[in-house]
């Protein structure tokens, strides 16, 4: 599958999103609720200590990532799983498609997985004639609306219940209701049939445990457990940096991830899947395949943006970001939106395509305040902006302006002349305007402060 060419039109997308009142209201509402709940959930715990410990564990894995991948693979095989390594999205998609084909499977149920979004798995499988049914309620909504998630943990965050009611009435043929409980029941009844008839379950993993080969999945709806235990075949697609060293490290993340994500103290369901169904066990897949996706991560971990790979995909930085709150996730035109999304998208999809996203931040730092594993998001964003400049991807006028600024900043005379010129040219400049910005600023003072004083 080829990605659209050219750079992402973030500003245009954002300007459009800003005019969408329903979207603005839904985003304000949801991100506001999450922010308040998160603040509540972390108010009485030793948060800094937890964050430091979690960050340390993540760094420990990144420091020896190749070793941990080997260790995880060995443990998983020992537990009865088959492990596949996929160097890129295409390889991962093909592995999943082949597995389904080999097993003669036409329909799979799927629990929420951002890695499957990253590799555009559903589109690919559908083209191969496989029906994939998303079973996370938010993902289900998005799937029947034929959209993409706009949040990494709350995929349908941009929709309000009236929109969901209309969508269900139109696509599922049920009577219109906007009662969330009733809508959930409708989806549940539909999905129950799917769970019982599916021959394969596809999942992601929140963590992969190196010493036991276990996959750890956090869900709130129990759909992850259904997907991974009911069908005879379970295919898990996850990326290599999700590994943690041992089961003993898991509590650090069990307490941080739900708190950071939705403000829950614990997640409703926590599944640990270690290998296939053993003799005497009543549930579990008889065949487990784990696809470990690299997709550029091995080179990211070797470079200066490695700390981005500490990310545990909680979405706290999205909820805290004023830009994300205002424009929603689709404006980013990428799998991952928000602060973490900007950085990951540049790293995964390349600067040429994603450099426009680097303007989707005021560098306010609200994201870094809430990140449970202390990814230095603003620093990485600034560094990527430097790289964009070094690559010559900024507009010519901006580059010339900055070059002029650089010269003036080291010469008080030139700087003073610049101030004078600004004062004189302001009225004219305002008319032709830099996107109207000058009209939003006052006119330079007749005399700069330094002149007034000296």
């Amino acid at each position, binding site marked *: 599958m080829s990605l659209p060419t050219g750079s992402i039109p973030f500003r245009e997308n954002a300007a459009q999103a800003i005019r969408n009142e329903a979207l603005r209201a839904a985003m304000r509402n949801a991100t506001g609720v999450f922010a308040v709940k998160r603040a509540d959930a972390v108010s009485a715990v030793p948060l800094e200590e937890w964050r430091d410990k979690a960050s340390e564990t993540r760094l420990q894995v990144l420091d020896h990532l190749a070793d941990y991948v080997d260790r995880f693979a060995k443990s998983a095989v020992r537990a009865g799983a088959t492990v596949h390594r996929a160097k890129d999205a295409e390889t991962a998609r093909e592995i999943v498609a082949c597995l389904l084909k080999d097993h003669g499977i036409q329909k799979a149920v799927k629990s929420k997985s951002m890695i499957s979004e990253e590799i555009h798995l559903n589109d690919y499988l559908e083209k191969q004639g496989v029906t994939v049914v998303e079973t996370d309620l938010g993902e289900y909504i998005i799937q029947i609306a034929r959209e993409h998630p706009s949040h990494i943990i709350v995929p349908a965050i941009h929709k309000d219940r009236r929109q969901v009611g209309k969508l269900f009435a139109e696509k599922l043929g049920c009577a219109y209701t906007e009662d969330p409980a009733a809508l959930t029941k409708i989806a549940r009844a539909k999905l129950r049939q799917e769970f019982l008839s599916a021959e394969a379950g596809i999942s992601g993993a929140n963590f992969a445990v190196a010493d036991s080969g276990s996959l750890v999945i956090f869900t709130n709806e129990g759909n992850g457990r259904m997907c991974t235990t009911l069908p005879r075949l379970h295919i898990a697609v996850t990326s290599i940096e999700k590994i943690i060293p041992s089961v003993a490290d898991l509590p650090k993340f069990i307490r941080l991830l739900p708190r950071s994500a939705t403000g829950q103290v614990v997640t409703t369901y926590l599944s640990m899947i270690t290998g296939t169904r053993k003799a005497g066990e009543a549930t579990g897949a008889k065949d487990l395949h784990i696809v470990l996706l690299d997709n550029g991560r091995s080179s990211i971990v070797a470079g200066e943006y490695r700390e981005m790979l500490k990310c545990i995909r909680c979405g706290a930085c999205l909820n805290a970001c*004023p830009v994300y709150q205002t424009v929603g996730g689709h404006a980013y035109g990428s799998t991952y939106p928000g602060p973490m999304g900007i950085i990951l998208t540049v790293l995964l999809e390349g600067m040429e395509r994603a450099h426009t996203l680097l303007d989707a931040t005021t560098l306010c730092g609200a994201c870094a305040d809430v990140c449970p594993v202390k990814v230095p998001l603003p620093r990485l964003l600034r560094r990527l902006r430097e790289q964009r400049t070094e690559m010559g991807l900024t507009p010519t006028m901006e580059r010339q302006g900055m070059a002029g600024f650089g010269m003036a900043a080291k010469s008080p005379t030139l700087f003073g002349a610049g101030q004078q010129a600004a004062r004189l040219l302001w009225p004219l400049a305002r008319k032709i305007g830099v996107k109207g910005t000058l009209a939003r600023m006052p006119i330079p003072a007749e005399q700069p402060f330094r002149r007034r004083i000296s």
Partner: protein
Amino acid sequence: MRVQLFVTCLIDTFFPETGEATLRLLRYFGVDAVLPTEQTCCGKPADSGGYRYESRKAAEHFLSVFGRSTDPIVVPSGSCASMVKNHYPELFRDDARLHAQATAVAGRVYELSQFLVNVLKADRAGLKGRGKITYHASCQLTRELGVKEEPLALLRSLDAAEFVPLPSADRCCGFGGTFMAKMPEISMALADEKLDTILSTGADTVTGCDHGCLMNISDAIRRRGAAVQAKHIAVVLAEGLA
């Protein structure tokens, strides 16, 4: 006590009255504030814009001007103070000499409210104010410099003025330096939301420690024709001086 005043290019160019208010305040507390006239800009716009070469030029100039004396450096802007204090050492990470110089200078930098409260104890000086005042907590001031309580202490201490806290005071106003020019739609949307919260307090004045934010908020006020003024904290405090 003698200090060096880095007035910032924004105040120098657009808001000289804030520079004057800063001087008056410092003098009121018996501080001899020297204004090195060769000062220009700290380089923040280039730094956050991703222009490392240009921000280094500005930073080198700043170090050469303010490195001549070992007097404290007072800056009436959280983002400019943080630029010098937190970003300069990072900017010169690959140059041992300049890194050492940057670290030394960084150690002498105070944001204005920080200096007024922590050094001059101005929050115990019985300064006067007027009207109903609320306060916007700028991002770099709050998150990078960690200056949260000082401006509040000053505003709460004002005689004859009422301080009303701003809901979500530390939420970004949408200024973001070059962000204001590059993403005007989002910038204005955020400023509008900031103004909503300001108006919800019933204050007649919103103050803050950064003219960048106040400029963006002023624009939202102007566009809406709202009956509230955005004033730098130096101006608010200096208004009450005899």
